């Protein structure tokens, strides 16, 4: 791992926490403002060690499809998130895995508690690892990629209709 200065590290950690909070609160417009134009959003099946698109993933969004996803969430008639799930992410183990110029690959573990209020009322638990690719831009740090590897991604999952 390349070393980064403490101020950069604090910025990166703050970004990861902020991204999690906006997702927790279904503030999708603000969340979307964090992404770059070439954003790639990926939730693989099993470990994310394959080329996205060569086999089926839960989510494999480019920027355009992510835009559609967020517009669908914002319609107010997306029944699978109507009403939106109440959620909290506990994020830990934030590590800067590598740096390359103005980009940082950042790993973290998380557990997400979701109250699936739409039908079953279950408290659902999602646990896994997020890998962010963050980029310095004139507007500050932005997210160019996010990969979420769920611990139990090989099991049949319930609805994953929010932004994870």
């Amino acid at each position: 791992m390349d070393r980064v200065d403490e101020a950069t590290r604090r910025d990166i950690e703050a970004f990861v926490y902020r991204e999690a909070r906006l997702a927790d609160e279904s503030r999708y417009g603000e969340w979307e403002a964090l992404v770059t134009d070439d954003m790639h959003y990926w939730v693989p099946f099993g470990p994310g060690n394959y080329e996205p698109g060569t086999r089926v993933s839960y989510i494999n969004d480019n920027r355009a499809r992510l835009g559609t996803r967020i517009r669908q969430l914002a319609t107010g008639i997306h029944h699978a998130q109507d009403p939106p799930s109440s959620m909290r992410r506990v994020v830990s183990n934030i590590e800067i895995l590598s740096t390359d110029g103005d980009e940082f690959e950042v790993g973290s573990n998380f557990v997400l508690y979701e109250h699936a209020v739409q039908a079953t009322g279950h408290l659902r638990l999602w646990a896994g690892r997020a890998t962010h690719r963050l980029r310095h831009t004139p507007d500050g740090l932005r997210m160019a990629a996010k990969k979420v590897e769920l611990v139990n991604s090989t099991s049949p999952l319930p609805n994953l209709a929010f932004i994870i």
Partner: protein
Amino acid sequence: MVLAAETPIVGTGRDYTHLVQDYRVHGSLYTDPSVFADEMKHIFTDGWVFVGHESEIPNGGDWVARRLGTERVLMARTPEGEISVVANRCAHRGTTLCPQSEGNNRNFRCPYHAWTYALDGTLLGAPFPQGFRNGKPDVRLDQPGQIGIYRGFVFANQSGTAGPLSEHLGPGGSDLLDRAADMSPTGRLQLNGGWIGQRVDSNWKMWPESDNDGYHIIFAHESLASSLLAGSQYEDVILEGEGRTKSVARDYGGGHVELDFRKSYTTELAWLGAPRGKVSAYCDDLEDAYGVEKAKSIMWDGPPHAFVFPNLFLGEMNIARIDPLAPGLTEHHHTPLLVETSDPGINRRVVLQSEAAMGPASFFLPEDVVIAERMHRAFDVGGATDLHGHTERGWVELGRGIEREQSGGGQRWSDVTDETTSRGFWHHYRCVMSGSATSGPAEGNGAAPPTDRRATVKADQRRCRPSTRPRGARSRNSSTTRLCSRMSPGTKTGWRWSPTTFTTGCRSGPVTTSRAPG
């Protein structure tokens, strides 16, 4: 306590000819554990069940774990190239042999006492032979009474009493599988793109209904319609309205049904959402393989959106299987319909379509899941005792379009928004659950729809009959487009994920948000 003056339904002897009527079914069919037990016997043991596809296990020793109803099985390829289906349960003490979902092994070896089986389930050996009469236990892995394969689709019948697979599929089911398999220029599908499962807290029968319901699409999935931007052809579908689309709901008998979009496509490859130039090698391969005429037909028609009783959903560019686990718990697994072709791009497009349409994070299926879960709860909570005790209330209405339904040539059809497909499923269900071997073709039954519903008697209902070949005349000239094709491929990431490193300098160009994907 005074019950309503209707037949009390107590114990396991459910009267399915009463619970399933031509235009309505009773809610207890989704929630009653004794109904579920009857289904496991009459449908998933005594009948044919889809297991998997040959292409999933191309090499000797390959296997995948599946379910036949609640029975866990392994579908394997023997070193000789034969397909076998065996119980995933050691014949000695019952240990699960393979806890993984897939693998490749020379044989199945139980970790408990190292009893070892060939891939066809034959016992090869058990350690310390002196303790066994003849040096070896006289057992093998349980296996279905018969398996059958059609166009690579593997089916199994546990009891062995269901008659030949061809009879179960009938001309309607066979034609649907033909149309799916013919999407591949070699005639062989490659279902090796991975299966994704979705857990649903609902009864399994809400899936044959939901997957083949042409009525709900513009309502339940309206959020996606509103999210795709103006100019999308999807909008036309939404605004098309009743009777305007040329798409048709079909019932082929035997529980096999289809939402037939073929007449609605206005361009070739409309189902793919891509012009020929994007997949020209695929189209050339089709012409080389099938000739120009048939290739044209394939390019226009696309893959079917259909259901093969009791658990196989041909979801256009997806193949899905439905696993019932309990009255209120179902798994819906899907895999992209990949083809054998020299074209470098079409399978990538199909994977991207699959990710958009199906699975827990897709644009379509989560709505169906949450609605099925709401349905299930509505029948399961509180009212269950009453619903099981008598049938005065708690019915599901499935009568839409019954008066304008047409029939002939062994099938029924009606407007795509009519509940012909659900009725087709339930009609066969009634025949199977009440002991008839087959529901026969879906022709007219000669009985006018009842005007006084309460007065319905069994004699008025569609009858269970033997099969004949259906007819399939059609034309194409409408403007309706099927939905999944709107979600065309677009993801191009230049960044390869790896556990420890990544490379930059290969960012794809900016993609603005002012355009829908595709």
